[in-house]
């Protein structure tokens, strides 16, 4: 990469990070609002549901803590930002700059994740104080692979939402389609329950969808639960390779339909 490209990426991230710091309170609240996995953990342990799937209390706690972490660093809202910008006519100036507007949104998300990091750490720290038996230190290679896997999960979600966001070129309310997608994301990603707890008939097809690779796979990897690392990472990469050309195609078709309304 040339120095200028490096500078472009660095400036984009730096500016978006400065912008996100302006919203640090909101980001702290968003981080707290992502504690669904802890509620689920409570339901699972209080009802001894983990016994049916042969996972110990400690491993289940670690799984949900990791699910919380993965969710914190893979949450995507690009469809809502793009929809608003599109309706308000803010996309127009971005479209005539030599930078795909989605790179701005991408930088916004990465900057938000960096801002969110300390808050997520604090929540994890509190979790460990309340559940000291769950403290563990993953080995470096697993930690490294988990970070990559979480980033790939973020990329998959970013691409899915970007494809949906591009539908704004045809329909003003593309976010309603995203809300439809939220249902399988919630139930099939492993946010509410590890996929291993699903019936065999569901498990047989669920791994062909992108959903288990959003939370379940990276969370299992980080928490040290048994998982097929090569298979999981390959599937994540495969989904990115499949989704990226779809995004490019829909973006190219959509910009031809663009009417620059609101501007």
């Amino acid at each position, binding site marked *: 990469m040339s120095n*200028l490209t490096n*500078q*472009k990426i*660095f*400036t*984009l991230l730096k*500016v978006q990070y*400065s*912008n996100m710091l*302006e*919203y640090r309170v909101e980001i702290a609240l968003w981080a707290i609002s992502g504690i669904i996995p802890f509620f689920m953990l409570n339901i699972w342990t209080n009802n001894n549901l983990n016994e049916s799937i042969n996972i110990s209390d400690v491993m289940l706690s670690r799984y949900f803590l990791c699910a919380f972490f993965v969710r914190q660093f893979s949450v995507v809202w690009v469809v809502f930002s793009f929809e608003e910008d599109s309706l308000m*006519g*803010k996309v*127009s*100036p*971005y*479209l*005539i*700059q*030599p*930078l795909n507007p989605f790179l701005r949104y991408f930088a916004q998300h990465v900057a938000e994740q960096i801002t969110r990091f300390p808050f997520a750490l604090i929540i994890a720290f509190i979790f460990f104080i309340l559940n000291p038996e769950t403290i563990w230190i993953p080995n470096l290679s697993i930690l490294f692979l988990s970070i990559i896997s979480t980033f790939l999960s973020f990329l998959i979600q970013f691409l899915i939402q970007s494809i949906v966001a591009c539908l704004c070129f045809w329909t003003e309310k593309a976010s309603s389609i995203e809300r439809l997608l939220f249902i399988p994301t919630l139930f099939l990603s492993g946010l509410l329950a590890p996929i291993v707890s699903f019936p065999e008939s569901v498990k047989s097809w669920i791994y062909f969808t992108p959903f288990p690779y959003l939370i379940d796979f990276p969370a299992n990897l980080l928490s040290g639960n048994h998982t097929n690392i090569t298979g999981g990472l390959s599937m994540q990469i495969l989904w990115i390779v499949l989704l990226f050309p779809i995004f490019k195609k829909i973006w190219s078709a959509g*910009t*031809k*339909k*663009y*009417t*620059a309304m609101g*501007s």
Partner: protein
Amino acid sequence: MLKNIIEVKNLSKSFDISSKEPGLKGTIKHFFKRKTKSLKVIKDISFEIKEGEIVGFLGANGAGKTTILKMLCGLIYPSEGSIFVSGNLPFRRKENFLKNITLIMGQKQQLIWDLPPIESFYLNASIYDLDKFEAKKRIKKLSEMLEIEDELFIPVRKLSLGQRMKSELLAALIHEPKILFLDEPTLGLDINAQRNLRKFLEKYNKETNATICLTSHYMKDITSLCKRVICVHNGSISYDGKLNLLLKKLSPVKEILIVCKSEKDANQLENSGFNVKNKSKNEITIKVENHSITSSLKTILNNFDIEDLFINEPPIDEIIGKILIKKDHNV
């Protein structure tokens, strides 16, 4: 001879518009079956713009001025016809084309709301591949020209509309574009801010020989910046030429207010064959055709005892108003 930087041939643009009848019945019908019709908003227009020209696009609301600008800068795709802007097809949005143009839309901002404008300037500079040193130099130069050196470090949300608009302009010009598309750039600004912005654009045009395409409902923007205007009426071009020729054509007479030394002189003047608009005591207003102003003034000054006289230009807004509603302005 100056070369054409913009060439538009037989350009048309249609939009699919859905219509809905009022009331509950209309809403239900609209829910189940949407009626859409294709509306041709730009109809077979052709024109050329030379490098360094400042051209004003005039027309009533909805005439199609902004749609033309949006097609010229590649924001929207034309339905028919061809557009070449500095040798490029705008809608392909190639990097070398985008680096040569800018679009400024009044009140539509690209500045990051919660950060000082300087952050957006550096961001734009890096988007246009300017190194830090060059960016700094240009920010300094443009902020001096726009007189916003003191506002560079204040969050955008705390700036006044005029300061924001100037900052928008700086952000849009940091890559020193060769072609500027300005859609109502002075919208909402006070008179002083409008004047400063016009002065800046004039200076920018002179210093960089940039081509400027401008739409504005403030006639002063058009009259002080544009020698050439393109009048758009219902998506078609009704006039393309010099502004002064159009003004002469639409307003062929001037009014002269003559203050005579005595009422007797005024009475004599009233009966001397001039087209009198009104008279009161020693003041008389006559209408004179543009081409006979000099001879008429000579006659008046030689034959009557005159205390003072004023030549009144017809109000420009009134004339432009005629342009907006008239279909043809062949000169």
